[in-house]
């Protein structure tokens, strides 16, 4: 089962991962990653993710298709927030179910690398001195490049 969601409100990853896991009887493993708004020294107060309706969700669905054809999965869950978020709130949840662990772990890694710098999302953060746009780091692009055939 593929379950891809763009969410405009706070969500509880456990409430998605539980039913997702339950929907795959006979699985050998589930790998889940949850990304949250990081509280750093000097502090991000608020994070905002904007999207472009005609492209963002279809692009995430295409990414899920790619992951499912590349790895031996039973199912893949992708949930990504848009809108305003505070420190500690979940931004993204990716969960993969498979017969064997390597496929599940690699599929989550692959999906996260693509969400970081190849999904139609734009991130900015507010600190004490105002808003600034966040670009992926060089290591994020390097991580994505690992998956090129």
């Amino acid at each position: 089962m593929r379950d891809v969601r763009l969410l405009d409100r706070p969500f509880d990853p456990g409430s998605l991962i539980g039913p997702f896991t339950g929907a795959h009887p006979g699985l050998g493993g589930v790998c889940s990653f949850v990304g949250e708004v990081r509280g750093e020294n000097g502090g991000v107060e608020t994070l905002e993710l904007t999207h472009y309706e005609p492209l963002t969700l279809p692009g995430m669905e295409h990414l899920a298709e790619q992951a499912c054809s590349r790895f031996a999965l039973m199912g893949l869950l992708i949930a990504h927030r848009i809108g305003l978020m505070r420190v500690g709130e979940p931004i993204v949840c990716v969960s993969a179910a498979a017969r064997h662990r390597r496929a599940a772990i690699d599929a989550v890694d692959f999906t996260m690398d693509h969400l970081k710098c190849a999904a139609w999302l734009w991130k900015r953060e507010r600190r004490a001195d105002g808003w600034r746009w966040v670009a992926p780091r060089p290591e994020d692009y390097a991580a994505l490049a690992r998956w090129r055939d």
Partner: protein
Amino acid sequence: MSVRILFLGPLRDLAAGPEREVAGPLDWAGLLEAVGEPIADRLRDDRVHVACAGRVLADKTALSAKDGDEVALLPPVSGG
């Protein structure tokens, strides 16, 4: 009818607003002229994509937007 230009992400700040309506039809040269500098300069960057009517153009310089189309200017992304 007109063409609506949408400025996504950081381009929104440069454009001083999320969107602008211009008379159609609109091609690449017309787009650069309509948005003006410094956005036109950003659009020439290979990492900035253009979508027309909901589809990302493989070659943005081949833009051919009709009245009623939405043209989205898509700077480098960051999610996750």
